[in-house]
């Protein structure tokens, strides 16, 4: 087990290092940010001074070493546009994204598993078929278009929910949260539903196929023969057995939620990290782009590592396969 964890840890470190290289060298190929930042009247001397001030006059490998040194010290450079440290800017947007992703994950669990159970226990009923039909739609509909249609229906036509922003927030432990106020919650419903839709469809399908397979197993027949009530069979015996794959997929999907938040945040003007990324790309704000990409890669690697370790703790077969290689 320890060997397995160390192996995976080393792999993860390797991935992060490779990503710093790719991201840093990649981003340096984009157009020179000085061109859009400085005054058009600026002459050569002033131009060179601007280059020097941003450290862009050094050879690229030196820029990289400085970058790595700074990253290790927790410094990703200052935003070219706002002049404040990039990492500070990103971290200030992090709670909004985490809150949105957390809400979407909750909705996924609350809707996905019961719908999947229902469809799995009554695969041929009209309701079961309808649930599956909706899940195919959930897969096919492009997230961003659904978001627009939601705004159109619920904000413009019906006027029930606000289309943009975060609403009132309550500060808990120094971080602002929306879900604690009624206004904040009403701002959250549309974006969180939009973000969760794909994942609800996914979890519904997973649960359904899990239930259908498990219901045919001998232990279910045995439990029934023993006289266990159907409720207990479904919620204790069956659910316990299908939860392992669902938990694994959900762990991995947490990363997916963070990535797709880029789209949802842009539509609903939710002030999270994803919106910051898109703004920074349009403004060529290099340190922020690099910082965002580094942070998201790091979060991903950490999530994958945690899921792998959890999974190997739950299922011994994975561990054996991993260490025999």
């Amino acid at each position, binding site marked *: 087990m320890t060997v397995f964890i160390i192996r995976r840890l080393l792999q993860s470190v390797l*991935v992060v290092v490779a990503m710093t290289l790719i*991201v840093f060298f*990649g*981003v340096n*190929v*984009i*157009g020179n940010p000085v061109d859009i930042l400085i005054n058009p009247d600026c002459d050569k001397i002033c131009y060179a001074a601007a280059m020097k001030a941003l450290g862009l006059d050094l050879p690229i490998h030196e820029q990289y070493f400085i970058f790595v040194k700074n990253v290790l010290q927790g410094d990703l450079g200052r935003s070219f546009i706002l002049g404040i440290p990039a990492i500070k800017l990103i971290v200030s947007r992090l709670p909004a994204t985490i809150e949105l992703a957390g809400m979407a994950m909750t909705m996924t669990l609350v809707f996905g598993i019961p719908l999947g159970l229902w469809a799995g226990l009554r695969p041929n009923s009209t309701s079961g078929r309808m649930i599956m039909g909706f899940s*195919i739609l959930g*897969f*096919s*509909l*492009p*997230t*961003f*278009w659904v978001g*627009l*249609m939601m*705004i*159109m229906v619920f*904000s*413009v036509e019906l006027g029930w929910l606000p*289309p943009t922003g975060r609403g009132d927030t309550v500060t808990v432990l120094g971080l602002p949260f929306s879900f604690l106020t009624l206004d904040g919650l009403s701002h959250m419903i549309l974006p969180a539903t939009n973000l969760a839709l794909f994942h609800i469809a996914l979890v519904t399908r997973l649960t359904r196929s899990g239930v259908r397979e498990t219901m045919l197993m001998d232990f279910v027949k045995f439990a029934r023969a023993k006289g266990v009530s159907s409720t207990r069979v479904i919620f204790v015996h069956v659910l316990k057995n299908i939860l392992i794959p669902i938990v694994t997929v959900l762990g*991995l999907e947490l*990363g*997916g939620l963070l*990535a*797709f938040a*880029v*789209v949802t945040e*842009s*539509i609903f003007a939710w002030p999270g990290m994803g919106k910051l*990324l*898109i703004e920074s*790309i*349009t403004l060529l704000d290099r340190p922020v*782009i690099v910082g965002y*990409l580094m942070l*998201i890669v790091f979060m*991903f690697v950490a999530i*994958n590592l945690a899921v792998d370790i959890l999974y190997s703790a739950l299922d011994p077969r994975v561990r054996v396969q991993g260490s025999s290689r």
Partner: protein
Amino acid sequence: MSQSVEPAPVALAVERARPPMSPFRRFLSDYAEDRVAVAAFVVFTIILALAMLAPLISPTNPYDLRSLSILDNRQPPGAQSMRGITFWLGSDGLGRDMVSAILYGLRTSLFVGVLSGIAALCLGMAIGLASAYFGGRFDSLVMRLVDLQLSFPSILIALMLLAILGQGVDKVILALVMVQWAYYARAVRGSALVERRREYIEAAQCLALSHWSILFRHLLPNCMPPLIVIGTLQIAHSIALEATLSFLGLGLPPTEPSLGLLISNGFNYLLSGHYWISTYPGIALLVTIFSVNLMGDRLRDVLNPRLQK
């Protein structure tokens, strides 16, 4: 004397064995058993034809700036333009006819989606086949890379690449290929590993055929069915991904508007109630993606050897 009565010959209803169906005919008839899948195929063919014939059939050329009049902007569906053309689906913020814009947008979206799908198929196929055939260190290196890439969501990788590469049709196609090759590589490798142990490959090796000819003339044709299925579903995926990226302003440049960009333009007018600018391109996108997905689902059932009758 006994009379021998010859039994009258009874005309037997001779049922001739039908000639064996060619694999392609059998495939067609299997596919046609599902009405929905046939409908999806018909719809997709119509969309493809509309997209290809866009310059011939669209009422106006939406990118001919001279024919645009700013007075025509944001007309509701069914309105008359200054030049007497009816805007059946309304007009956008610059006074362009939405029908024409959608036809041209479909053209761009399909072009990018299909081309990147095919390019990714070729790249992934070559890498996956080589990986399965040669095995060893090359194989494990490629598979680690595939695992690594598939552990990130495709939108994130595409965003990362486009943040690095910048805008442009070629760059979007490149990003979409980079995002998708891994799916094909893994699928091809899986089926090639099974096929590789079959006798016909051994026979080909005994004939001292070149690696090249064994790989592409013997191994590849037998790995095709799963590839066709994944290819179809991936094309739907890449059309959706391109639309998303263009919507975010990172995909195609405004000079080559795809459906995603049209939707994005309409987004600015959505809050003031001009719903048609976003809605109709979105429906075109949705119908395209949905029909391709339905076709892919049916192909999966038809080409799955385990379900073969």
